[in-house]
């Protein structure tokens, strides 16, 4: 065994494995390799002793007591966080649900009707009995198109559509003839 072979073994093997066979014979006959091996053995032993002397400065009792206290606090904090999360989610769901209820009644629908027989003024007259304060009718008197725009709640608009279908249909009414509008129209 050469010195280089021995040193390459010394670089990676545990020193106790060098105490056998060829390696041991080489170290016994080579003063340099023997010295180097002694240095490594001695310093590694010191390293082991140093590592074994490392002790935490705080005694076990306080560490354990503090660990138990902190562990319980964290467990409680976890329950709080879970509770807060559930409460926050419930609040958000409640807000969403209540907002939908508020929005629904105030929803207004606007619709434009193209008149076939009636003039916009006549249509406004026809719609007068079904008009509540919430229903607004806008007309353009000078417009040649015969258009009327009505806005109201979906229920009111349903009545408006029914009235216009009845009085603004060529088969049902005589276009150009002066209509006598009843004071009250019963909507089905």
């Amino acid at each position, binding site marked *: 065994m050469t010195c280089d072979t021995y040193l390459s073994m010394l670089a990676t093997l545990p020193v106790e494995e060098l105490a056998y066979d060829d390696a041991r014979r080489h170290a016994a006959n080579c003063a340099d390799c023997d010295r180097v091996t002694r240095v490594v053995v001695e310093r590694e032993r010191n390293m082991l002793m140093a*590592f074994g002397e*490392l002790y*935490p400065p705080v005694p076990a009792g306080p560490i354990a007591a503090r*660990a*138990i206290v902190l562990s319980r606090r964290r467990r409680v904090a976890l329950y709080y966080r879970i509770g807060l999360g559930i409460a926050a989610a419930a609040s958000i769901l409640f807000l969403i649900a209540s907002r939908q209820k508020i929005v629904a009644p105030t929803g207004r629908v606007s619709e434009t009707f193209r008149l076939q027989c009636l003039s916009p003024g006549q249509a406004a007259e026809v719609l007068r009995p079904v008009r509540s304060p919430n229903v607004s009718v806008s007309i353009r008197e000078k417009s040649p198109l015969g258009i009327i725009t009505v806005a109201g709640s979906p229920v009111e608009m349903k009545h408006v559509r029914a009235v216009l279908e009845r009085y603004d249909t060529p088969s049902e009414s005589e276009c150009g003839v002066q209509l006598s509008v009843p004071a009250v129209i019963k909507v089905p």
Partner: protein
Amino acid sequence: MAEPPELVARTREGDEGAFATLVERYRPIVFRWAIALSGDEDEAEDVTQEVFVRVHRKLSSFRGDGSFDAWLYRITRRVVFRMRSTGPPPCDNAAPNVYVTDPGARVDRDRAFALVQSIAATLPMRQREVFILCDLEGRAPTEVAGMLNMKDVSVRASLFKARASIRRTILATHPCYRERPR
């Protein structure tokens, strides 16, 4: 003294004395791991405390089919990495050359810290872990492989590299080796 499985079982049942015994037994080991992984004494103290807080909280999740040491080591490792990623960077103290020793001199506390700091400075994390667990704590590579979730052969390879690195540093400071004709 009761063995870890018994202490774990008693702690689960709410026996605080058993937990204190568990801490007493594993406190130096956790502290050494923490120093080896972090290279900083103050950080190692904080890590030791935090590890035992987590042990107390998560003891119910320890199934007991594996080694308690391995479970504890994984917690220590996670705490060190978490502290390093969230806390300030550790002080970069220039470690003295602790591989040069005075035969017969008492290995004092400062010297021990300096030694571990120098190991931390010399070796990459994986090699450091393997070197500490195998060569300084005397664990078998198979056991270390289980603790680190590595293959046995990878542990041995890392150990060889770590030893080579440490011994290169030892020998580089030794006059008779430096002057030796090669």
